[in-house]
């Protein structure tokens, strides 16, 4: 009688016995009566056992049904639906970054850089099918038109051998590969401007030796420094400006990753590289300060004359484009121990460029520009939580009424972008330089400090200050105050970049 309430059992047993004793008492308990009584008890016992068994079966059925029911989860990692065995899963996540930027000692002629802006507004769809096929689809709504940031399918034959195809980040830069939401600073360093960003291609990758060694090897359409492959929106879908492809590869080791007692457990180091031939149809990427002001742009033909210039006169009115072999190499490391974090990387980029006349590159001289960048960034979580490449998880959430404040992290960074002076030299007889040294710097050196406040696992407020010193190729007096970049670089830049971010 395991499953019946004890009160019911007691009542049934009492009733049975009472009926039995009454009968015995009244009829002096003939043998027939006793037999009937026994049969009555047997039947009651059977009814009880049947009821119990039915309850047991119902409970088993309910448990079995629960095992096969899809698992729905809503938490600070987003919304997910998973099959019972976890082999199939759909996730919905999001990222919103609302920024405010302010620049001290602005040139009065600059009127539009102190601003609020929506830096990123993304809905992130993730899914897994049959355990080993996954996808990621990330549309971006923060630009002037919706774009697709990431869109790829990943097939994991094993954890050590996976194939990814679609649009995603090329495996070169360390910080470039870090999630947008968890980097130390609101904006990435100059190194990320010299390594490729997102591109269309296919990549073989995986983790070896118990996850202590990660490799990636891919073939991509190819992008110039710091560029994305043409944004997937409107008419620029799946852009590829040439027939050549880039090879990109990265290897990253964390030898002590699984050694819990080692002070080197949080050390990782590696090397990323890419090579290929580029022939960009449009101009090269500009370079920006950590405060996100564009300060270096290669020459661009003016539209009014670009379509009419004869080659002889185009030597002073052209667009500088990639034209030939490109290669980059980026040694990199990080080290995390407790609340302390340190991340460093270097990038060397060699890109062949040419002045492009309106219709062709025929006869154009080619120059190999060698640009360099490096950064060293550090962090310390004041509230004691662990620092890490994948971000900080606060021990408590911010709760005004409850008196808890979340986590606070101090960050600092020194980064340098050293651009090749050959950009300022004429590429051939009669040509203007590929970039004008009167309104472009040759070196950017930035010191950044910041405070990250983790209100919860998914909400972060960040306050960054960047001071940038511009190295010039000409005396400061020669900088053109009439150009937009000249107005910025004639003084040091002091920028506040603040952000309120929701990432789940």
């Amino acid at each position, binding site marked *: 009688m395991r499953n019946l309430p004890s009160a019911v059992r007691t009542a049934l047993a009492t009733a049975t016995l009472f009926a039995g004793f009454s009968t015995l008492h009244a009829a002096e308990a003939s043998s027939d009566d006793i037999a009937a009584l026994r049969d009555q008890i047997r039947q009651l016992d059977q009814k009880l056992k*049947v009821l119990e068994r039915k309850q047991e079966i119902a409970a088993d059925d309910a448990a079995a049904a629960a095992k096969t029911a899809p698992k729905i989860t809503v938490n600070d990692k987003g919304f997910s639906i998973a099959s019972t065995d976890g082999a199939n899963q759909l996730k919905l996540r999001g990222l919103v970054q609302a920024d405010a930027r302010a620049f001290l000692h602005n040139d009065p002629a600059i009127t539009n850089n102190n601003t609020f802006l929506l830096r990123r507004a993304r809905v992130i769809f993730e899914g897994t099918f049959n355990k080993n096929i996954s996808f990621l689809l990330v549309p971006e709504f923060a630009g002037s038109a919706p774009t697709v940031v990431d869109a790829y399918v990943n097939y994991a034959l094993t954890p050590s051998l996976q194939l990814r195809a679609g649009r995603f980040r090329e495996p070169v830069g360390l910080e470039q590969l870090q999630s947008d939401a968890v980097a130390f600073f609101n904006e990435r360093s100059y190194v990320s401007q010299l390594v490729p960003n997102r591109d269309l291609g296919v990549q073989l990758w995986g983790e070896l030796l118990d996850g202590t060694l990660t490799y990636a090897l891919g073939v991509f359409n190819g992008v110039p420094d710091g560029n994305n492959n043409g944004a997937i929106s409107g008419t620029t879908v799946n852009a590829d400006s040439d027939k050549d492809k880039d090879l990109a590869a990265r290897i990253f080791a964390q030898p002590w990753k699984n050694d819990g007692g080692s002070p080197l457990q949080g050390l990782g180091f590696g090397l990323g590289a890419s090579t290929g031939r580029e022939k960009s149809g449009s101009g090269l990427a500009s370079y920006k300060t950590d405060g996100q002001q564009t300060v270096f742009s290669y020459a661009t033909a003016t539209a009014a004359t670009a379509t009419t210039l004869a080659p002889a006169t185009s030597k002073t009115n052209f667009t500088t484009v990639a034209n030939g072999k490109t290669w980059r190499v980026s040694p990199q490391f990080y080290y995390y121990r407790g609340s302390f974090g340190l991340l460093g990387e270097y990038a060397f980029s060699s890109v062949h460029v040419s002045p492009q006349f309106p219709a062709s590159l025929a006869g154009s001289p080619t120059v190999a520009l060698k640009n360099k960048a490096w950064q060293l960034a550090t962090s310390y979580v004041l509230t004691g939580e662990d620092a890490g490449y994948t971000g900080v998880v606060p021990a408590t959430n911010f709760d005004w009424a409850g008196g808890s404040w979340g986590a606070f992290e101090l960050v600092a960074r020194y980064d340098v972008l050293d651009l090749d002076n050959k950009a300022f030299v004429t590429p051939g007889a009669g040509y203007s330089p590929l970039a004008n040294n009167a309104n472009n710097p040759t070196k950017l050196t930035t010191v950044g400090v910041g405070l990250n406040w983790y209100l919860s696992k998914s909400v972060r407020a960040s306050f960054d200050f960047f001071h940038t010193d511009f190295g010039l190729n000409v005396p400061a007096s020669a900088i053109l105050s009439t150009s937009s970049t000249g107005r910025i670089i004639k003084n040091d830049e002091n920028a506040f970049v603040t952000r309120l971010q929701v990432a789940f």
Partner: protein
Amino acid sequence: MKPKSLLLAALAAVLATAAAAKDIELLNVSYDPTRELYVDYNAVFAKYWQAKTGDKVTVKQSHGGSGKQARAVIDGLAADVITLALAADVDALYDNAKLIPQDWQKRLSNNSAPYTSTIVFLVRKGNPQKIKDWDDLVKPGVSVITPNPKTSGGARWNYLAAWEFAKRKLGSEAKAQEFVARLFKNVPVLDSGARGSTTTFVQREVGDVLLAWENEAFLAVKEFGADKFEIVVPSLSILAEPTVSLVDKNVKKKGTEAVAKAYLDYLYSDEGQEIAARNYYRPRNETVAAKYAAQFPKVELFTIDAAFGGWTKAQKTHFADGGIFDQITTK
């Protein structure tokens, strides 16, 4: 070596590492009372396969009501082989998902039924209700335990055996239907599978008689004691033919076709037949059958083909939604 050649060599090395052989794992999705049979058989087959090929094979087992198990495979359970209670449940894999070819039953001997069984009665010691044959089951006050024919293969064999007995004794299909309806009125609990019904009868002490697979009845007596239960063999019963098949789509996808096929073939070997007999399944192999003849009671057996025109017809008439079983149990 040029950079591109180096990359190709590295790629080939990674692919070769990933392709290194692994232990093989099979999933046998079976019906309820075969747990013990396949525990024994899997161990023997693993030894045989390792000796033959050097590969180590581990066979995982899944058990439940035969119909339920078929549904699970149709819904995606990645069975390499199915060893179900009856052909109709295997047919469902073709009918509903084309996981196997339509003529799957022709691929192995004896219509892909490597062993047989039948239905007997398990009663409590002393047989207090004096149950001797099928018509004792419809008497008032007799509590009969059988699983649900909608989910259990064994229950369908029970039902059809009772039907055929009544048809022969009472002379018509209509009287057989009335007989079976009366029988099911005496069933207080419908488990989803045969092992559940055994639990109901043996461990929960519900009911006067369990309609059981012969092997399940022997096992209950062996495990719980001849002083508690006894087997009653009815005058007529059905030749139950549990059937086996590869799940073609799954084995092709998993690359386990060869070992899965060998797994089923080996059921017909002398060793496989011995294991079946030791677990109280009637072997097909005549030599092994003769060796274990004394173990199995003599009973007149009829086949489903002869009495009901085969499983497809029986399934449609009796057990499909709206069929006779639904009609008699909803009255």
